[in-house]
Structures are given as structure tokens and as C-alpha cells.
């Protein structure tokens, strides 16, 4: 965990989350296969998030799910999970853990802050709690997960330095 910035209005912390990207058809059978591996049910509705203390499980679109592990679990278990899923022809699970970086945004002005970097409509009526979105933030592809009190944003690791700088720059200039 690294604190990227903290002001009276917004705080950004980088986290060491892990992630699996799952592709599949979303049928009952698919859900059963997933359920066999992990207790949490895959969300059924597009953009919906199911989360508990340890996971964010989001449906990104009709054939794609992101499963984030919020506490550094045994990475071996995740690899096993991926391996087991991939035994099924109609599922593709890829490990996204270390190829992506994770930021938590909190604070009362988090919307205004992020809207310096994205035109995405963050208002709760357009982006309700427990939903996710894939959009451009600071000109790069990101996923954003709305957990109510905080947002989790992920992007590719190669952008890590750039994205950190843009976040800090945005907080410094108002």
C-alpha cells in the first residue's frame, strides 16, 4: 500500500490487489463452475458488482467478469483457481494480478477530482454504488468500481508512473 496523495478533499492510495479476468457465457453452468471455485456468486447483471470484505466481483459486460482480491491471499490459490477454470473449454480465465495497478480514491470531493481527468458521469444516478465502468481516465483505459465510500480504479501497470503523476498533478492544481 502506498499513499499517493492526501488533501482535505481527496485521498488516493495505491493497493496491492490481485485480479482474475474471466470470460465466459454467463449461463447457469458457467455460474456453477465459478461457484465451485469461489464462494461468491458471479454478478448476473451487466456492470453489477458483488463484493465482500475480500473480493470485488464485477460483470464488465455480457461475457466478461473481473474478480479482484482485496487482501493479498495466497497467490497460489488464485493460480489454481485460474487453472481449474481453464479446464473448461468455454471459459478463459487470465491472471491480471501483477500486470495491473490499483488505486483507491476516497474523500468528499472525489467526483470533482476525477472529473478533472475524465468526462465520465460519476453522479450516483448515472453511476450507482456497486456498479463498475470501463472508461478513459487521464487518456488511458481504466476500470472504475464504485463501492460507495470509495472508488477502486485499475489500469495497466505500464502506465503506473504516468497515472500516479496525473493524479498528483490533478490534486495540486485547482
Amino acid at each position, binding site marked *: 500500500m502506498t499513499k499517493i496523495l492526501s488533501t482535505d478533499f481527496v485521498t488516493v492510495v495505491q493497493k496491492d490487489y490481485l485480479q482474475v479476468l474471466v470470460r465466459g457465457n454467463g449461463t447457469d453452468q458457467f455460474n456453477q463452475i465459478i461457484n465451485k471455485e469461489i464462494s461468491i456468486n458471479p454478478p448476473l447483471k*451487466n*456492470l453489477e458488482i458483488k463484493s465482500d470484505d475480500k473480493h470485488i466481483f464485477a460483470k464488465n*459486460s455480457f461475457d466478461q467478469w473481473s474478480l479482484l482480491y482485496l487482501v493479498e491471499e495466497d497467490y497460489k490459490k488464485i493460480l489454481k483457481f485460474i487453472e481449474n477454470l481453464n479446464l473448461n473449454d468455454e471459459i478463459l480465465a487470465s491472471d491480471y494480478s501483477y500486470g495491473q495497478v490499483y488505486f483507491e480514491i476516497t474523500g468528499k470531493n472525489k467526483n470533482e477530482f476525477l472529473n478533472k481527468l475524465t468526462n465520465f458521469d460519476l453522479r450516483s444516478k*448515472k453511476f450507482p454504488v456497486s456498479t463498475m*465502468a*470501463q*472508461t478513459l481516465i487521464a487518456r488511458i*483505459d481504466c476500470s472504475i468500481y464504485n463501492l460507495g465510500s470509495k472508488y477502486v480504479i485499475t489500469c495497466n501497470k505500464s502506465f503506473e508512473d504516468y497515472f500516479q503523476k496525473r493524479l498528483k498533478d490533478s490534486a495540486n492544481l485547482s
Partner: protein
Amino acid sequence: MILIHCPYCGEREQSEFTNGGEAHVIRPKNPEALSDKEWGQYVFYRSNPKGIFHERWVHTHGCKKWFNAVRDTSTDTILKIYKLTDNRPEISEFKSPLKSPSGEPAVGSGNFAVKK
């Protein structure tokens, strides 16, 4: 910048999307059976109407899914968004604002601003 309603992600600015040109162009099943000219038509020729246009979009910076739209190219108004699995909406469903192929719509055009 127009807004496009991605059927999977919701409304986003056009810059998140990539246009894929004319929709419902089907790749020939048996390319070898086609003449050079027929093959060339498939590869290089796409319709380019002023007015009602069935076109493809992909949400490049979002879910990366393709979908279709009906758009009035004379005003950039999006008239309908539909999934690839949906049927092609008939052109008669939409009212073209144009009186001639290269004419201007009464409102929304770039060229005339004064009501006659």
C-alpha cells in the same frame, strides 16, 4: 462531440468509440468464387449516404463490444442503437429530413441558419 449509448455500458462520449463504417456488410462465404471486381466491391466499397445510415461502432475504450446504430449523417443525430444480434431496422422506420440526396435538413445542418 456526440454522445453514444453503448448497449452494454451506457452513454459515453464519441471519443471512447471507433466507427466501423457501414453495417450489415457480410463477408462473402466463398471469396474464391468472386471476380476481382466483386471482391473489390466487398473490400473497398461501402455506402456513404447523406441522411439515414446503418453503421457499426465499437466501444474501444470501454467494453470493446461491437454494436450497430442508425444515424442521420446530415445532423449526426443517432436514431437507434441496436445489438449485432438484432434485426436491421427498416429505413422506413425513420424519417429522413432530406428532400434530395445531397440536400440540407431544415434544422441541424451546418450550412443554413436562417428560417426562410
